[in-house]
């Protein structure tokens, strides 16, 4: 418990900053919607003339931008990458920082097992990630609600937050895996961020080139398509199961490799 509290405390400032960042992102993004909605249906027409490739890169997708929640769906793609960056970094650094700051000789000489250290640290990282998610939910709910004109949106946002949680969890554990299993824990955060950015780029590349659709299993950003979620398709079971499997595998690798390897001192 002491280790968990210590981690919560040491991540407090960064957590607050990330939440403020999310707040501005959602507020500024939805502020733009005010301008869009004023122009009515014509926006969709203008957007439809934009080439598909540009639309893909800008994450416009096939959202109905005249509704607040549709516009939010577009914004969500940016929120997902932001929160994924946060999750990756915290997942990697929370494990690797003891070695980076050379405090592992202090911590591991205490009567603690490697297993309990990883548990406490991952719990703290998870609580941070969850907080970011809940803050995003609260801010999104308020902002979309403010601009909505009698359309239902709460269910849609809740679904999107579940998606975000899945993406966050996967990347948090990708970070912790890189830190626990990698040969050089000090660069774990960079390695994991690289993987995450590659997954994001792959997501966009698949959008641009439909022939590459089979690669969608490789990037968690593709597991849950916001546009489909806001439509009627909902969650696709194969990707829900795939996410659960990935999370379990990454958890296993994190715990086992951290227990078995030499600390880099």
């Amino acid at each position, binding site marked *: 418990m002491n280790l968990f509290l210590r981690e919560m405390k040491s991540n407090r400032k960064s957590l607050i900053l990330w939440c403020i960042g999310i707040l501005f992102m959602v507020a500024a993004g939805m502020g733009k919607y005010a301008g869009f909605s004023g122009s009515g249906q014509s926006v969709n027409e203008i957007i439809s003339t934009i080439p598909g490739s540009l639309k893909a890169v800008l994450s416009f997708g096939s959202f109905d931008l005249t509704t607040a929640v549709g516009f939010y769906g577009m914004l969500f793609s940016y929120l997902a990458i932001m929160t994924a960056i946060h999750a990756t970094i915290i997942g990697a650094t929370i494990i690797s920082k003891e070695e980076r700051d050379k405090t592992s000789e202090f911590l591991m*000489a205490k009567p603690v097992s490697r297993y309990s250290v990883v548990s406490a640290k991952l719990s703290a990282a998870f609580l941070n990630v969850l907080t970011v998610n809940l803050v995003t939910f609260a801010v999104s709910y308020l902002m979309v609600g403010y601009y909505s004109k009698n359309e239902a949106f709460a269910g849609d946002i809740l679904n999107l937050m579940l998606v975000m949680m899945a993406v966050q969890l996967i990347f948090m554990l990708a970070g912790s895996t890189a830190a626990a299993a990698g040969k050089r824990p000090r660069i774990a955060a960079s390695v994991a961020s690289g993987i995450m950015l590659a997954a994001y780029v792959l997501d966009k590349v698949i959008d641009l080139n439909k022939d590459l659709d089979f690669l969608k299993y490789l990037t968690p950003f593709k597991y849950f398509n916001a546009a489909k979620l806001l439509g009627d398709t909902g969650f696709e079971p194969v990707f829900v199961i795939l996410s659960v499997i990935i999370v379990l595998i990454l958890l296993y690798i994190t715990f086992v490799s951290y227990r078995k390897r030499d600390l880099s001192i």
Partner: protein
Amino acid sequence: MNIIEIKYLTKYYGKSRGIIDVSFNVEEGEIFGFIGPNGAGKSTTIRALLSLIYPTSGSAAIFGKDCIKYGPEIKKEIGYLPSEVFYYDRMKVIDLLNYSASFYKKDCSKRIRELAEIMDLDVKKRIDDLSFGNKKKVGIVQGLLHEPKLIILDEPTSGLDPLMQQKFFDLLLEENKKGATILLSSHILSEVQRLCSRVAIIKEGRIIKLEKISTLKEDNYKKFKLEMKAPLDNDFFNIKGVVEFKSEGDFASFLYKGNINAVLKRITELEIANIWIEELDLEEIFLHYYEKEG
């Protein structure tokens, strides 16, 4: 009873050598010295004892229990001072000490106050504002605050001024009297000589000597350096126990082992301007003495 039992402990980092077939025991109530030059494998051995790293082969037990299997349990009764102390920068000293104490299921606040007072440590300061020596003091208090039965110290005195070193040694002797067993690693022979009853000498990953300190002291070379008014005849110090004689102008130097009076009598026959008599440091002992045996 043996507090520490190390059997054929071997550790390779990839292909590079850490330690090879290290075996020795530390008995209960003993202050055991572990000496060797930098990079000989002292820290590797200690880190394996604390299961910070895992041995390639061989085993080690503390309090009769395997170091890896019972690691967390064993560590309840171990206090460890690493050779380089690094702590969470943004913490105050007292926060770090309380955090350290929170891992042990007992109230250590009184002992923290006592130790901080003995070591003259200001607990209200932030750790990143401390000098190297003061950080070392934090390490010492941190290692002793839970009154461990086994104290493991890896090069503990570097950075401490002589006065603090003395206080620290007194503290260790006091803990030892209360029943604590101490494993002290060092590359400075004199501090090991002052405290320890037995030593293991490690060189290039292998234990080359396991000896009582009293024995080691007897057959130790001393380093003599003389400055004379007139150049010296090369055969002047051709007596038993003198090796490595060198003469350069008014200066002469040699190593001597044996009855100190014999050589002093010889020196008084000379008109000398200055004299230096030094203990060999460990590196020199390795060079001049152990190389032949090892």
